[in-house]
């Protein structure tokens, strides 16, 4: 048994605010990439769902390939995190799979309507399209509704 996951409680971590500053910086960079690649654009999402341009498919597929190769290398060479822990990717449970196709399809409808998935929604608010706080708030209500209905939904 390794103790990498359930070790004794870590001592109070120093540099926590430094960690958070790093995540803020990564988020800023993520937001810039989403905006500059126009992945936040309702027009680009329409183009994608109408199969009239390669742009979004290029972004998504090259992102998957780069991330996939990186994950394969991390596993192949048993790379560790900066804190020296094993890299662990918690597997998703399949269950009956209902949640994936049903939830996925519902999100797909929202993606086409708002022209944005969650990351782009927040980037759009930052870009100055203030009305997007409406779908952001509606998304919070939707998430809350799911949490409330969860015991009664098939998964």
């Amino acid at each position, binding site marked *: 048994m390794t103790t990498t996951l359930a070790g004794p409680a870590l001592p109070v971590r120093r540099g926590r605010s430094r960690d958070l500053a790093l*995540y803020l910086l990564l988020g800023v960079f993520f937001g810039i990439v989403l905006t500059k690649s126009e992945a936040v654009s309702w027009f680009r999402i329409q183009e994608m769902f109408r199969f009239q341009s390669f742009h979004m498919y*290029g972004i998504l597929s090259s992102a998957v390939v780069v991330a996939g190769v990186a994950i394969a290398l991390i596993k192949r060479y048993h790379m560790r995190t900066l804190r020296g822990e094993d890299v662990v990717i918690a597997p998703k449970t399949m269950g009956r799979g209902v949640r994936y196709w049903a939830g*996925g399809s519902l999100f797909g409808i929202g993606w086409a309507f708002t022209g944005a998935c969650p990351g782009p929604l927040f980037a759009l608010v930052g870009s100055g399209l203030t009305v997007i706080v409406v779908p952001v708030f509606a998304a919070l209500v939707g998430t809350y509704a799911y949490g409330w209905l969860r015991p009664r939904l098939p998964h």
Partner: protein
Amino acid sequence: MALLLRPWPWYVAGPLIGLFVPALLLLDNKQLGVSSNLRHLCAALAPRKVSFFRYEWKEAGLWNLVFLAGVVLGGFIGGNLLAAPAVAIATGTHADLAALGIHDFSGLAPRELFSWSSVLTLRGLVLLVAGGFCVGFGTAYAGGCTSGHGIAGLANLERPSMIAVLGFFAGGLLATFVLLPRIL
């Protein structure tokens, strides 16, 4: 600088986005996933008696909420300081959307639909309110969005993510070809 100002091509943006997956894993075993933040926000704001929201959100998601704050800031930088001209969409899409009554192609989203004055119209309610609701409900139900399932999940060759992504497109195609023409 001119290169930064121009829209970034897919072969620059895609690989950059992909690199966030190993970067977050190697930093501290964090998994890329933006929609988790909707859950964290619900947990922070109104956990009440809903078990789905009763967990230590700061422990689980403070890093991600800070990342999300960065995304908003990045949107400001990308959409203002590095602002590009109108989105150069395919002529076919331009024609299809014009046929649906969209004429303002100047912003990141059509102003006719995405403005405060349209919120209380039927189109505005459907696109902004119902659309947003579907994004929140759907991603929470599916346990991920484009980043968590579409990029991180597919990259890790996870079957649930493959099913979820097929769902994304099933819903998106239904909305685009069946629902939107009836709403716009």
